[in-house]
C-alpha cells in the first residue's frame, strides 16, 4: 500500500517540531531547567532496578552461590583428601621406614634407586567385593592406574600404606590385582633372621597366607608372633618388606608343617594404592 508523502501542512508541522526540539536542546545545554526531571528519572531508574534486582535476581544469585560454595567445599575436601593420600603414598618409604623395610640401609638404597622411582605409579580402587574377600578363595580387586602411559603393568607389585597387597595380573583400562590371600597367589617369604625361606600361598581367608615346609629340610624353630618378610626371590616383590606375623603353627605330619601368617596390609584399609614394577 502506498504511503502519502508529507503535505505542505505536515512539512510545516515537521519544521515546527524540529525548531521546538532545537529550542529545547539549546535550553537544556545552557541551563539546568530540565535537571530536576532528569534527576528524578535517574533516581526512579536506580531505585526500581534495585527493587527488581532484589526481588528477582538476588534470591536466585544467592541460591546459586550457596549451591556452588557447597559444591566447591566438597570438591576441595575431596581434592585435599586425594592429595593427602597421594602425599602419604609418595612418602611411604619415609613414613613407614620402621615397619615397611627391615633395615634403613635398604630404604635409602630404594629411594636412591632410579628403577623404583621410574616405575612408580598411583592407582585408585575401582572394585573389590568385601564379601568374597571374607568368604571365598578367589581374592581379586580392580584398580585404575593414574597417569599411566602405554606401559604394561603386568606383574607389578601393588601396595598400600601398610604393605604389599598383591600383584597385577591383567592389563586394561582397569587392572586386575591378585591379592596375596588368593589361593592361586604365591609370594616368597623369609623370617626376620634370614635363615628360613618358603613360598607362602594364599589361604583364601581374609588377611591370611600360609606356608608349608618340610621339617626335614628346615630345622628352624618358629614361634607365634614372629615377623615374616618378602625375600625378593620371585623377582616380582621387592626384598625385605614386612608381610605379617605368625599366628599359628600346624604340624600336619612328621615331615610337613604349615605356618599361617596374618598380613599387616589389607586391601580394605585404603582405596588408594601404589604400583611398583621392578
Amino acid at each position, binding site marked *: *500500500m*502506498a*504511503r*502519502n*508523502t*508529507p503535505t505542505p501542512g*505536515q*512539512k510545516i*508541522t*515537521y519544521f*515546527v*517540531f*524540529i525548531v*521546538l*526540539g*532545537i*529550542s*529545547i*536542546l*539549546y*535550553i*537544556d*545545554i545552557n541551563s539546568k531547567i*530540565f535537571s530536576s*526531571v*532528569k534527576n528524578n*528519572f*535517574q533516581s526512579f*531508574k536506580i531505585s526500581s532496578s534495585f527493587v527488581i534486582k532484589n526481588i528477582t535476581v538476588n534470591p536466585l544469585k544467592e541460591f546459586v552461590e550457596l549451591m556452588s560454595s557447597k559444591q566447591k567445599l566438597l570438591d576441595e575436601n575431596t581434592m585435599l583428601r586425594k592429595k593427602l593420600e597421594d602425599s602419604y603414598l609418595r612418602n611411604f618409604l619415609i613414613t613407614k621406614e620402621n615397619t615397611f623395610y627391615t633395615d634403613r640401609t635398604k630404604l635409602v638404597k630404594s629411594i636412591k634407586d632410579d628403577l623404583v622411582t621410574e616405575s612408580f605409579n598411583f592407582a585408585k580402587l575401582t572394585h573389590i567385593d568385601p564379601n568374597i574377600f571374607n568368604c571365598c578363595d578367589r581374592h581379586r580387586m580392580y584398580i585404575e592406574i593414574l597417569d599411566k602411559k602405554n606401559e604394561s603393568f603386568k606383574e607389578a607389585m601393588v601396595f598400600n600404606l601398610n604393605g604389599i597387597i598383591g600383584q597385577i595380573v591383567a592389563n586394561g583400562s582397569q587392572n586386575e590385582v591378585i591379592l596375596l590371600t588368593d589361593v592361586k597367589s604365591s609370594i616368597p617369604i623369609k623370617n626376620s633372621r634370614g635363615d628360613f625361606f618358603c613360598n607362602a600361598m594364599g589361604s583364601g581367608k581374609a588377611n591370611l597366607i600360609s606356608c608349608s615346609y618340610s621339617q626335614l629340610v628346615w630345622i628352624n624353630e618358629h614361634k607365634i608372633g614372629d615377623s615374616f618378610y618378602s625375600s625378593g626371590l620371585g623377582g616380582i616383590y621387592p626384598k625385605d618388606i614386612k608381610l605379617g606375623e605368625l599366628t599359628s603353627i600346624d604340624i600336619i605330619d612328621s615331615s610337613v608343617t604349615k605356618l599361617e601368617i596374618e598380613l599387616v596390609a589389607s586391601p580394605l584399609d585404603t582405596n588408594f594404592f601404589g604400583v611398583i614394577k621392578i
Partner: protein
Amino acid sequence: MIASFIKKTLLIILVSYLDYKISYGLSKIYVILPLTFLAYTFFMYKSDYNVGPLESFVTGLFVDLITNSYFGHNAILFCFASYLINTYSNTFKLFSYFQICIFFGASATAYIGFSQIILNLYNFSYLTLFLSGIFNIIFCVLVAILSVYFPSISTRKI
C-alpha cells in the same frame, strides 16, 4: 492502541539498553552503532502508516530521557528521520536492498555526526565517523541478509 504503545515503549527501552551495553566495547575500535536510532528508523520504514512528527518527537524525547542525553537531541533527529522516510517512502520501493542499506547506514552516520557535534564537540573524531559509517552500512547489509535468509524474523524484506 495502548498495547501497541506499551510494546513500542518496551522495545525502545530494550534496544536502548542493548545500545548502552555494546557502545563501550565498540568505542574501543572507534565505532559508534546508534542501535536505538536505527531500530526506530527501521520501524518507521516498515510501518504501514506515516509516523507523524508528534510521535517521533515524543519518542525522541523519551529516548533522551532514558539515555540521559540532552532533551531535544534525539527528538530533533528522530523527527528529521521521520520526515525523510515519509518523504521517500514510495521512492524506496524503486531502490535495491543495498541502496536502502546505504541510506540507513548514511542516516546513522549523520546521526553520529550530529550527536558528536552536540555531545562531544571538543573531541570530534573523523576517524570515528568514517569507521562508524562503514560499520553501520555493513551492519544494515547484514540485517538485510538476515531478513532475506530468515524471513520468519522479518515478514517484510528491507
